[in-house]
């Protein structure tokens, strides 16, 4: 290890070792275009590295990483929303539209890749905060921790997770072959 490395660098390495794949999944959820996705992922890593200079253990490293990455991604989506005037919806609206997501009857079973594709398409329609909730749920984070990361009351997180489960079952799993 080079002698010029600082505690900030060490913390960044620790965070990337533990949450690097989650950041990559998050970037893929926020941005479908591969080139822009790479830029976003770089922005998230840059924000994370910079943030480690002020990490003060007031929250867990996991909470810190998810907040910083999400905030960087939110800036990104707000910038692109200004350009494309893209309307983003809430989990509640997405759930209400679930009947519109007609299942493709020509394929008796969706392959895993198709399920993931459908999942990404769904996530990319959501507003930043609801996107964060569904991503954290998929990462296996419990409701209390999701509330801590997002700042949403735990009651609302529980409600949103309930809706997410229904929506995922309806949109992604009905014709599954896992």
């Amino acid at each position, binding site marked *: 290890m080079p002698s010029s*490395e600082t505690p900030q*660098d060490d913390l*960044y390495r620790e965070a990337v070792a533990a949450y*690097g*794949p989650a950041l*990559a*999944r998050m970037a*893929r959820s926020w941005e479908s275009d*591969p080139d822009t996705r*790479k830029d976003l*992922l*770089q922005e998230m*890593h*840059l*924000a994370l*590295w*910079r*943030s480690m200079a*002020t*990490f*003060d253990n*007031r*929250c867990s490293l996991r909470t810190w*990483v998810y*907040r*910083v990455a*999400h*905030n*960087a991604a*939110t*800036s990104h989506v*707000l910038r692109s929303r200004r350009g494309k005037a893209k309307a983003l919806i809430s989990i509640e609206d997405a759930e209400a539209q679930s009947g519109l997501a007609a299942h493709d009857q020509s394929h008796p079973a969706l392959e*895993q890749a198709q*399920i*993931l594709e459908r*999942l990404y398409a769904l996530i990319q329609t959501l507003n*930043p*905060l609801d996107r*964060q909730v569904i991503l954290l*749920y*998929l*990462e*296996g984070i419990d409701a209390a921790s999701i509330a*801590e990361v*997002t*700042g*949403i*009351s*735990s*009651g*609302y997180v529980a*409600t949103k997770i309930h809706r997410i*489960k*229904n929506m*995922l*079952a309806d949109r*992604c*799993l009905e014709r*599954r072959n*896992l």
Partner: protein
Amino acid sequence: MTSDNSTLCNLWQTQPLESFQMSLEQLRKKGKRLNRVLLIRDSTVWVVCLFEIGWFAWILTIAPQLVAKIGSILIMFGMAFMNGQVWLDQRNRRRSLQRAETSGNVNSLDFFRSELVRQREFHRGLWFWSRMAALYPGLLVFGIGCIVVFPSPDNLVGYAITAVALILFPLSIWLNLSKSRKYQREIDTLDALKLPPA
């Protein structure tokens, strides 16, 4: 359904990912490059401002009528003011983003909310009305001045500038206020999420 969702979570967490690596050296370089880009972006506002001022300063020198000169001066001040406001907004945004983006102490809701509040404020209140007050009198005086001095129906420039000023003013107010209301609705939705569900 629960086990289905667990399977989905498992599929999510084990999906193949594109390889991505960024060394510390690359991070440092990207940080410096980003600072340069922001500096250039800030400078662009002033270059545009100088161009606009130069254009109306030229009109000031060639316009023989007092009213057109007054209009040009008012427009120059108005544009300088508006550019200054845009620059200030960009600077404030950059500072708040740098603070919040790099602080894990700011939760996702508060970060998103602060961005919406900043955008709402740009479209209403003191910022918006001072922008209108700085820009439109000059445009109107300049346009009316052209019509008064050259009352011919062929004076399309004068009529066009006056019409733009008269149409743009109420249109800008309507567009900006409806945008600010849209942001306010999003802010209200976020605020409700901080409280337990009713």
